[in-house]
């Protein structure tokens, strides 16, 4: 208690020093008055008494000082003094100060930005979800997805979770009194989803257990964004009925703003376990999530779920054998382990940049410290403690790093904003926003980001400040005062040489990393996808409503639309079909002449439904046979086109034309279909492996679909015909939504390698900054040493050294540490690149092009860094130099 009170009083005195000070002055006056009164009474004159009183008292100033020290935090005063001194020192050399702050700001800013993104992606989880770290995501593996009965068993048997819910994403059409239809994202969830997530609606009521029982009255929960967009935040919408895919549904509530779980969601509806959903083999819900009970570890939950899974395997051998629960944390489930490692790699890259920045500053401060030897020796000689000297220097560097952190914070904010624009693709068409999590994740900084910023700012300040400070505090005062230069040249030179080598090594690691990342990106970017995406515009149409129920109506609609779009000026050719590189369906099949297998073992192919002219529109070549045409009616002989890969696999060395196969719908075989053409391979799911997937094409006329892409090749920029396509669709059916597009196919392609592009750009930025810092650092060290050795160079010249000798002298000093750094760095680069291997596409971690190119760049910059000071050294005039102090 007493300690606390003392502390508080001292604090009060620190804040209000004037009160204590005037109180003390009054007390001292009173004291002196009392003494002189006493002395006067003993017979002294007033003046004598006054003087004697002062003598008896001792030094008033010292008493005040002691008093001050006792009542307040003296060291805080000292630090205030140190800070003032540091500010003056920094202000006196604005060049050095701004270089230091900018260097630090770049390093700290890069780190904070990357940490903010990593934090949002890996650690923060969903916004407005309670204790994200206690939520686990479950699916059954291998592969994906959970059957509803399995979920029910898990929920009933698992004791590790305090709650468990299931998520099933669907897209539906909404219409209400206003008449127009809108496609939106609905997510089917079990009724206790919000309770498990730990968030309740801001308006209306939560789902109740009755809502997800079969036969319940349909209800829906709105997201804030949707409520805002569609209902203008009208609270009266709660309780109203809206039509969802034709079904009247009551709105029961609105979730708070920003809550978007577990994807970008417009509204949530209960997942009602209909008999269809309750099939054990129907494994098509997205995932299950559960909240860990207090005190239960992830490992324990994992172990329990495995036990339950084994039990279910035995209980339901036909459907559940081979499927075990997979329990994952947020980032394991949504981001995946390879993406996790890319974030680690990015953090690693930016921390290298920060290290280089530190090394650079340490070198700059070392150089300055040498300039301040005399000042420091005077202070030491006058009795300053070594600790005080160290503290002075550390405070100076901490102030630099704090300023750097401040500026870096703004740079980081800017960087994160750029990243989110880039990553969410909002620079592109809004329809092709990328992966789900960019729309969900919250990139705003939280306490972790601020803690990180503070930690690296203080950490760097200590890191680059301590070395020069320690060196100065060990000065030999006598020697230093005599020669004024400190004399310990050897030690300082060695340390700065080491720092240069370190910078070079880190820079080469970053350069080599950026090199392989860019090579890898280039491989993805230029990979032959098997079709020509330039000048192609696409739009997805989804025929909903009674008008389009029949296959004839679907065929007629798309026929009509293709004809209409082909008349838009600038359009060269039009077709319909699934987009290349995704959109094919998995279908069981059987080739004529092969034995009929049972259901479980029947092979599956990827099938894509397309209209005639599809290959011409997308620039896919037809290798043999014919394209689909108008004669391929439903009543005619059933035909299909296979791709080269499919033909090669099933009929090697034979002519595939005329071969037959049939597809299965469930267990029912369809009619035999005849191969009428062979198309060249198109990259399906992985653009890097154009021949990985065998693919067959089915004619739209014989296998029409209610949803399909319309694909148009244009002679003009694809964007310019988008409005025309939209108009034609509206002219045919004003209420028909266009869920995706129209947009250029290349933009959608860009989506695929956007993450590679982002990491590539980041690595390149880091490498460029690192190279710049390292070469500036080298330049500064060499240049500084040349100016310190002007006299020596003068003597050398005077006794007959040639310009070449001087050149060699300077270059040796700069290039030796650079070469050492290069050698160490190359070895380290190989190790680091090995860690990046999972991210690399068709590039070896020891890619000679990347390694040689980055070494060359680094060597060149090292030579440049030495060249300028070397030229200055050669121009030294011996006569002037010898007089130089």
């Amino acid at each position: 208690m007493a300690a606390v009170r003392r502390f508080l009083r001292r604090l009060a005195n620190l804040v209000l020093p004037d009160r204590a000070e005037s109180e003390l002055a009054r007390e001292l006056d009173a004291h002196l008055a009392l003494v002189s009164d006493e002395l006067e009474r003993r017979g002294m004159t007033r003046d004598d008494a006054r003087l004697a009183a002062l003598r008896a008292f001792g030094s008033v100033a010292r008493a005040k000082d002691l008093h001050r020290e006792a009542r307040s935090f003296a060291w805080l005063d000292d630090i205030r003094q140190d800070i003032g001194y540091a500010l003056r020192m920094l202000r006196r050399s604005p060049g050095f100060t701004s270089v230091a702050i900018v260097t630090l700001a770049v390093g700290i800013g890069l780190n904070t930005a990357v940490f903010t993104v990593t934090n949002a992606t890996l650690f923060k989880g969903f916004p407005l979800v309670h204790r994200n770290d206690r939520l686990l995501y479950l699916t059954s593996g291998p592969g994906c997805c959970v059957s509803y009965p399995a979920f029910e068993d898990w929920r009933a048997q698992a004791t590790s979770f305090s709650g468990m819910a299931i998520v099933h994403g669907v897209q539906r059409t909404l219409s209400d009194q206003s008449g127009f239809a809108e496609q939106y994202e609905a997510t089917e969830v079990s009724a206790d989803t919000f309770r498990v997530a730990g968030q309740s609606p801001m308006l209306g009521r939560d789902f109740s257990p009755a809502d997800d029982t079969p036969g319940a009255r349909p209800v829906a929960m709105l997201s804030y964004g949707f409520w805002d967009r569609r209902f203008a935040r009208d609270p009266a919408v709660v309780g109203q009925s809206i039509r969802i895919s034709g079904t009247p549904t009551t709105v029961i509530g609105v979730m708070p703003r920003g809550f978007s779980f577990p994807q970008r969601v417009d509204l949530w509806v209960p997942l009602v376990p209909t008999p269809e959903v309750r099939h054990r083999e129907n494994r098509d819900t997205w995932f299950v999530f559960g909240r860990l009970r207090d005190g239960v570890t992830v490992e324990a939950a994992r172990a329990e779920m495995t036990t339950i899974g084994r039990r279910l395997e035995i209980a339901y051998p036909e459907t559940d054998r081979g499927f075990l629960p997979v329990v994952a944390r947020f980032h394991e489930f949504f981001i995946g382990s390879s993406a996790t490692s890319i974030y680690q790699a990015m953090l690693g890259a930016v921390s290298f940049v920060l290290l280089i920045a530190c090394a650079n500053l340490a070198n700059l401060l070392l150089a300055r410290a040498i300039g301040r030897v005399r000042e420091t020796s005077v202070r030491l000689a006058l009795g300053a403690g070594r600790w005080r000297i160290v503290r002075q220097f550390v405070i100076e560097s901490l102030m630099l790093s704090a300023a750097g952190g401040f500026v870096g914070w703004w740079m980081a904010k800017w960087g994160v904003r750029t990243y989110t624009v880039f990553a969410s693709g909002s620079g592109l068409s809004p329809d092709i926003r990328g992966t789900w999590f960019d729309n969900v994740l919250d990139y705003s900084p939280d306490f972790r980001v601020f803690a990180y910023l503070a930690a690296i700012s203080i950490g760097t300040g200590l890191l680059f400040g301590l070395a020069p400070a320690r060196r100065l505090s060990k000065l030999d005062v006598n020697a230093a005062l005599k020669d004024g230069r400190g004399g310990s040249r050897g030690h300082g030179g060695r340390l700065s040489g080491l720092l240069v080598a370190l910078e070079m090594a880190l820079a080469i690691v970053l350069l080599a990393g950026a090199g392989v990342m860019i090579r890898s990106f280039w491989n993805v970017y230029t990979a032959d996808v098997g079709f020509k995406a330039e000048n192609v515009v696409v739009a997805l149409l989804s025929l909903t409503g009674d008008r389009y129920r029949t296959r004839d109506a679907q065929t007629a609609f798309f026929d009509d639309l293709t004809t209409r779009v082909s008349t838009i000026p600038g359009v060269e050719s039009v077709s319909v079909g699934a987009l290349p590189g995704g959109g094919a369906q998995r279908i069981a099949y059987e080739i004529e002449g092969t034995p009929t297998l049972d259901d479980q073992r029947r092979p599956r192919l990827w099938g894509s439904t397309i209209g005639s002219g599809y290959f011409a529109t997308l620039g896919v070549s037809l290798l043999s046979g014919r394209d689909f045409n108008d004669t391929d009616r439903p009543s005619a002989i059933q035909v299909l086109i296979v791709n080269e890969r499919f033909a090669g696999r099933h009929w090697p060395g034979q002519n595939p034309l005329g071969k037959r196969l049939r597809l299965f719908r469930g267990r029912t075989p369809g009619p035999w279909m005849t191969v009428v053409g062979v198309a060249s391979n198109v990259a399906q799911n992985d653009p890097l492996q154009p021949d990985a997937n065998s693919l067959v094409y089915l004619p739209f006329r014989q296998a029409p679909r209610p949803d399909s892409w319309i694909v148009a090749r244009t002679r003009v920029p694809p964007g310019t015909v988008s409005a025309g396509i939209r108009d034609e669709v509206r002219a045919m059916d004003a209420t028909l939504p266009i869920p995706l597009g129209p947009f250029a196919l290349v933009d959608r392609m860009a989506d695929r390698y956007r993450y590679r592009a982002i990491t590539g750009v980041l690595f390149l930025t880091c490498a460029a900054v690192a190279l710049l810092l390292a070469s500036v650092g080298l330049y500064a060290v060499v240049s500084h040493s040349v100016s310190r050795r002007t006299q020596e160079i003068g003597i050398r010249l005077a006794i007959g050294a040639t310009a070449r000798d001087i050149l060699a002298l300077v270059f040796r000093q700069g290039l030796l540490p650079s070469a050492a750094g290069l050698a160490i760095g190359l070895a380290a680069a190989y190790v680091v690149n090995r860690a990046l291997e999972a991210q690399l596409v068709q590039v070896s971690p020891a890619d000679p092009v990347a390694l040689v190119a980055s070494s060359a760049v680094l060597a060149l910059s090292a030579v440049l860094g030495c060249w300028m000071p070397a030229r200055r050294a050669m121009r030294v005039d011996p006569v002037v130099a010898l007089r130089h102090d």
Partner: protein
Amino acid sequence: MASEQKPRVELLQGTLDLIVLRSLGTMGPQHAYGLAARIEQVADHPLALNQGTLYPALVRLEQKGWIKGAWQRTQNNREAKYYSLTKTGFRALKHETERWRRLAGLVDKLLLQEP
């Protein structure tokens, strides 16, 4: 004058606090000069300590809550800050006195034993 001076007694760290406490304990409320005079009287030497050095000790004790100061008038109608012991101050005085006795006793014993 100079010949009269005895060598100055350097006070041990912390002893001044005990002296102040003890003086206040026996004399009751007292101002700084009164304390200084009392100490000089006991020490039998007018220059045993600079009166100014009393002040840090007073602040320390006040911060510990052992004494508290209040402005009053002296008999000669001068204003002065009178310090008095608080309740914790009395306890501390007892405690510190014991501690001092133990320490002094120990040092005494050591000094007697060593040749």
